[in-house]
């Protein structure tokens, strides 16, 4: 049944449906409403969890690490600076292969200070070894959150559910939440094979010398690759239960005969789809590729999705200064050995919350025709605002 809910409120309720035993979080814009809603659920007795109000994101991540290591389901949420303050723990959690779920309300990273949406935060920890799933709308965010608990358990990997800060977290829209009974039946009780247990004492997080470290990394990498199938399977299973899917690893829409493709992560693609719908008569249509799983990276699915394209526009919501777009670079690498692969046009946009209008579709398609266009640009930067030497 649909309800008109603010994204953050819906996420809090979705988390509650998964019955985490321990929740630890530190407030940061734009994640705050998630923590507040969780606190309210606890205060009203609608959620039974050990809610640990920590003194920093660093401790939030550490608390959920300890909780999950001790064998219970745990959850945290953060954004931006919080992700970076957690960074050391995030690598640690993943390296120890601890199943956890964390919502990232994607926000730019300071300086300059910006509380607004882009993907700089989760991108900064892309190599931490967490699964990273991006959500296109609040329904997907709810569904992905619940799925994430199962993916984490099945893969023994931590899962980051990335949702655009403000654009999703603070937006009210009709959202369907499953029944408690449905989730209880769908989500198995928490299991962690290496949990701390006085009846079977184990040492976790030990020192590993050079003679074993490479093997640890190899098995982590292998687990991430195996997670591709799990992510897709869990989404299919969820569809069986609710009739709703989130697109598995990636989702392709738009006309099959299109020669232009547009790939994006998160909420951007909805606006682009509307731009395509409202485009002028002379503007070409495009195949839209919604990249849901950023880590692990679905190379094979992406190659298939790009089949027959002449051009692929890759939209990044963060940049790697001195290189360009991270998603664009990775897509190019994956398509590099594909015969007749599309030409990549990589643009960053919507950095630091810059509003993306639907007219961007037409502008993006038009930019393909420009033979002098650089391989990468910040598409919506207004260079007139800069001193001449910085343009």
């Amino acid at each position: 049944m649909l309800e008109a809910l603010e994204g953050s409120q819906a996420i809090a309720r979705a988390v509650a449906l998964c019955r985490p035993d321990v929740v630890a979080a530190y407030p940061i814009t734009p994640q705050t409403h998630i923590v507040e809603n969780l606190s309210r659920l606890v205060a009203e007795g609608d959620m039974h969890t050990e809610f640990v109000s920590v003194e920093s994101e660093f401790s939030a991540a550490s608390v959920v690490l300890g909780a999950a290591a001790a064998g219970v389901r745990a959850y945290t949420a953060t954004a931006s600076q919080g992700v970076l303050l957690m960074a050391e723990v995030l690598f640690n959690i993943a390296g120890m292969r601890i199943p956890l779920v964390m919502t990232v309300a994607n926000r730019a990273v300071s300086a300059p200070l910006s509380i607004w949406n882009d993907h700089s935060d989760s991108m900064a920890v892309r190599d931490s070894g967490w699964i990273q799933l991006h959500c296109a709308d609040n329904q997907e965010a709810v569904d992905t959150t619940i799925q994430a608990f199962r993916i984490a358990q099945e893969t023994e990997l931590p899962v980051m559910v990335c949702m655009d800060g403000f654009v999703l977290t603070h937006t009210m829209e009709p959202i369907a939440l499953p029944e408690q009974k449905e989730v209880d039946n769908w989500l198995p009780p928490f299991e962690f094979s290496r949990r701390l247990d006085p009846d079977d004492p184990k040492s976790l997080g030990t020192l590993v010398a050079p003679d074993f470290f490479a093997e640890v990394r190899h098995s982590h990498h292998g687990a991430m690759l195996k997670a591709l199938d799990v992510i897709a399977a869990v989404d299919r299973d969820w569809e069986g239960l609710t009739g709703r899917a989130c697109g598995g690893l990636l989702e392709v829409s738009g006309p099959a005969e299109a020669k232009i493709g547009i790939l994006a992560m998160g909420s951007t693609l909805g606006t682009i789809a509307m731009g395509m719908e409202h485009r002028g008569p002379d503007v070409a249509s495009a195949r839209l590729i919604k990249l849901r799983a950023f880590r692990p990276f679905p190379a094979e699915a992406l190659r298939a999705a790009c089949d027959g394209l002449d051009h692929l526009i890759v939209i990044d919501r963060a940049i790697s200064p001195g290189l360009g777009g991270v998603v664009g670079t990775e897509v190019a690498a994956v398509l590099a050995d594909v015969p007749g692969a599309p030409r990549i046009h990589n643009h960053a946009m919507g950095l630091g919350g810059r509003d993306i209008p639907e007219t961007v579709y037409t502008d993006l398609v038009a930019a393909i025709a420009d033979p002098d266009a650089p391989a990468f640009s910040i598409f919506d930067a207004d260079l007139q605002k800069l001193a001449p030497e910085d343009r």
Partner: protein
Amino acid sequence: MSVANERGERLSELRQKYGREPLPPRAEGTADTPREAQPKFRGLDSGHRACQGCGEALAARLVMESAGPDVMIANATGCLEVFTTPWPQSAWRVPWVHSLFENAAAVASGMEAAMKAKGRNTKVLAFGGDGGTYDIGFQALSGMLERYHNILYVCYDNEAYMNTGIQRSSSTPHSATTTTSPAGKERMGKRHLKKDLLSIIAAHHIPYSASASVAFPADLQRKVRYAMGIDGPTFLVVHSPCPLGWRHASALTIEVARRAVECGLFPLVEVERGAVTNVMPIRNVRPVTDYLELQGRFAHLMKGGDARAEEERAHLQALADYNIGVFGLKGEGEDPVDTGGIAAVGRSGRPAGRV
């Protein structure tokens, strides 16, 4: 009473599962010595890779003996973590996790929350060195105490970053040399005071915090047992000499630790809810030079004819005198608490390393 029974049963159960061969029965009529009366569960077993004479390894073993088997540990990065768990080996016989340098208190908070959620009363311990406690892990520790988690935090204080090779910490005593506070023409070692951590901990008004020393094992173990019985945050800082970092002979660990207490530089006190409730009295107060002279880290203070050295020695003596005055450490007559400790670690009927 029922809790004690439960613990006892669990202990024997676990000992059966993981313990060594039981000792042969004792001849009738012989009484337990105080040491023999201690629980014998070896939470931290032998075979680890600590240096000879490591005060921290000894302290951790003593803590684990008293804490018993129904515990789990979050261990900060540091010597203790490194020398006990070179993968795939581990010297721990209890569930143990190491995450990072600065988050042992927070990881322990999560473990404790998990135990609460599960309805279990397995006690969570957090271990850190002085680096992970006084310095980088200080915020997480303060948060844990403020949130009132049921955790015993033990700081093994060897007064410098020993794991990375003897760099100064905020626990390094004034004028001690480390690789980042060397003595030279312009400097007399560390220029700053040892942080008074116990006062800061006490300011959280937690049920119990105390200082202890490896030189007084009976006292240390009593404090651990007392803390274990409290449902709430408790804190213990254990003075643990590091022969490598303090530059003394490995055989002198206990003697050095004892002299730190006996000169007043490391007072053994107990604080409950912010108030000092007990101190270990010093029968014969020694001059601080008795303590300093055993250690290479203070060698620059012992040079005759150096006015700077004289001034620093006087400063350290003043610090010790201050402690003795503030805590009323000057005891009269025999002290009932520490004798068992000294006897227990003595070898061949003679306290180890007595010079």
